[in-house]
């Protein structure tokens, strides 16, 4: 689509014109829907809860306050799941020759078997260029789809950029309303043809995300660029997987599809609305977009029973003592059970006092613990970057990882601690562990 056709005629010469009126219109109707749903009181998939580090703050001077935000997806199944609009974007470059190709075909076969006739599937394969194996259509004749898949053959180079573009265009050809939209991007190598630039590829994903397309990045083998794949998944709210051996490909595809089928909230954004005399200093491990008295970040899609956390640090200015709502936190998302854009919110209410002893006794241990984990997450990121750029030695990396692991065990994050153990083992065997480490998410937790 040519962007120029979307431009609206200029009105006020002093204001920048927004280039995408269609997109805006969708946003507005989303808001209207949110209002209507709220009044009808239907059951939404997400709930949000804010826990301030301290319910007191000093009235007389500038103070800083961490707020733990918990986004909780309801655990109960709401009957039938939303149909999927799924696109498989598959790498058929030369390095896929042999068993990887065979296992990938088998994995795709599983995906087809798991889908239902009201799901929509499209398949794209890329090598020197991207080609459409199957345009978006309902999964009716499974045998025929598998025959398409089985005809795939290995090619030469890896044109990831064009693969993503073609896959996204297939997903976009289906009206997004009423579907869980997801691209499964599978690759085993660095982009070697087409647009190979890291930033261009990530920007393309970010742009597709704004159209409601989420990417799951599945990296296979030792050669792919984990920083790129992790960025694709993170920036679009999808999952990232590192598949070490070809025989694991079908299992990981199955696992991811199950996760997608349990998606209850998509296009999740958190918006912090600040009252007067309040600034957002940071949102841990996120890059907020700041507006007038607001800060907004993108969160990953949530599946049933999942809890995501975020930590916001506020700076509070002095004021007359009393009770204030310093911020309101909104979670805006597409709800898979109501089929609409919903907003849930929670107030951060703080007591401003001149009595310093109240503050000393008012700290919330839960927020302190989560803060430790957020700092560990930041350290982990730094360790991975240090390993990638060889700025830190394997020994130093091991020490850092063991520290992080001990902290995670202490905080009850056993699954993530196990992932770190895997990375520790890899380093001890002299193998690269970055691909494992970059996928560890400390701010997402599945509650069974």
């Amino acid at each position: 689509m040519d962007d120029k056709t979307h431009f609206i005629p200029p009105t006020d010469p002093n204001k920048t014109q927004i280039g995408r009126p269609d997109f805006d219109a969708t946003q507005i109707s989303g808001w209207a829907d949110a209002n209507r749903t709220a009044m009808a009181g239907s059951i939404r998939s997400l709930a949000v809860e804010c826990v301030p580090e301290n319910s007191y703050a000093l009235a007389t001077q500038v103070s800083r306050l961490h707020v733990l935000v918990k986004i909780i997806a309801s655990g109960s199944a709401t009957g039938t799941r939303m149909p999927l609009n799924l696109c498989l974007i598959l790498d058929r470059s030369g390095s896929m020759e042999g068993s990887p190709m065979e296992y990938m075909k088998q994995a795709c076969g599983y995906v087809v078997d798991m889908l239902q006739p009201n799901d929509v599937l499209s398949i794209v394969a890329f090598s020197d260029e991207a080609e459409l194996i199957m345009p978006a259509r309902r999964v009716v004749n499974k045998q025929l789809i598998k025959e398409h898949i089985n005809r795939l053959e290995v090619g030469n180079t890896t044109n990831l950029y064009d693969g993503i573009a073609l896959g996204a265009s297939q997903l976009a050809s289906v009206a997004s309303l009423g579907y869980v939209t997801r691209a499964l991007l599978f690759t085993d190598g660095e982009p070697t043809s087409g647009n190979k630039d890291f930033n261009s590829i990530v920007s393309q994903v970010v742009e597709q995300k704004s159209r409601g397309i989420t990417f799951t990045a599945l990296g296979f083998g030792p050669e792919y660029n984990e920083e790129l794949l992790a960025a694709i998944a993170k920036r679009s709210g999808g999952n990232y997987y590192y598949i070490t051996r070809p025989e694991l490909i079908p299992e990981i595809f199955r696992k991811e599809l199950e996760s997608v089928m349990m998606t209850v909230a998509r296009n999740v954004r958190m918006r912090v609305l600040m009252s007067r005399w309040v600034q957002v200093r940071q949102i841990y491990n996120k890059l907020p977009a700041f507006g007038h008295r607001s800060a907004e970040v993108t969160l990953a899609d949530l599946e049933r029973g999942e809890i995501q956390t975020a930590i916001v640090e506020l700076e509070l200015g002095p004021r007359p003592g009393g009770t204030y709502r310093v911020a309101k936190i909104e979670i805006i998302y597409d709800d898979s059970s109501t089929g609409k854009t919903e907003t849930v919110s929670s107030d951060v209410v703080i007591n401003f006092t001149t009595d310093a002893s109240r503050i000393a006794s008012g700290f919330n241990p839960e927020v302190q613990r989560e803060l430790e984990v957020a700092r560990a997450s930041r350290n982990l990121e730094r360790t991975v970057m240090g390993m990638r750029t060889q700025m830190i030695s394997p020994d130093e990396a091991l020490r850092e990882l063991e520290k992080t692991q001990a902290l995670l065990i202490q905080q009850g994050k056993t699954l993530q601690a196990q992932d770190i153990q895997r990375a520790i083992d890899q380093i001890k065997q002299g193998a690269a562990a970055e691909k494992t480490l970059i996928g560890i998410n400390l701010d997402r937790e599945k509650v069974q």
Partner: protein
Amino acid sequence: MTDDAEKTIAAGDVYSEKTSYVGQPGAEPTQMAVGIECPVCHTSNPPAETYCMDCGFLLTSQPEEQGVELEMRPPAVLVTTDGTREFALHVGQNTVGRQDADVLLTHNTVSRKHAVITVEDSKVYVEDIGSTNGTYVGGSKLNPGQKVELTDGAEIVFGNQTLILKLTTPSEEPSTKEETVTAQEAPVECVEIAPEPETQEAEAVAKLISEDGTVSHTLTRRTYSIGRREGNDIVIPDPYCSGRHAELRIEEDRMEIVDLNSTNGTLVNGVRIEPNNPYEIRIGDQLTFGQTVLKLEAPQ
């Protein structure tokens, strides 16, 4: 805790009305007369509000009476170019960086310990403390350890984050002009950052021209601001171009473009680049700002 859903949403809508509450909301003559006036900030609130829409005060309560010495205005603040963020500076040393800093800029072009801003005797100085991507004042890069005095309105760039210094004028001395004059006489240990002499013949590195040839700029080694508004180094009279749209950096061995979070984005060869991230460009590249397409060419 989500309380009454309807109420919450209503408050949200009021919040999102951005421009109404800047400055002194109480003084707005157009606001509804019926409602609850906030005892703290005097904003008039609709009767249904629990918390003041502006300062968040719990409207059913009363503020504590004992005379709390309210905030002395900070001696200076740093604001982002779009005005959405404000960093108050205090007297003494203010650290600037990506982690645990007073002026916290969580962007990956900013070093963890990037710079120090010192406020003393109503003067403000900045010093780069060995950052990776450097600190720029008025377009000139600071050498590490070089302490530079900043004047009101100075543009300081940390990595790719631009902040503008706003000095708080002491209310008891309205003669700000006098102060500016003395400020220009820099102390001996400080280096005055002078604007680039225009007379000096700088070497042309590239040319930025429009397809029809109406826009043509010869580029030398420096940083150019690009936007619709007058005052940019390269002004693009296109309503789809943001007031401050992008920054073009021409360096020794590298040229890069940074989209300053413009409304319609910056495209390089038809591909939209990520905002606030330097993107390397080369001779022959096509740059799109709004609806205007400019080509980067070799000089002559």
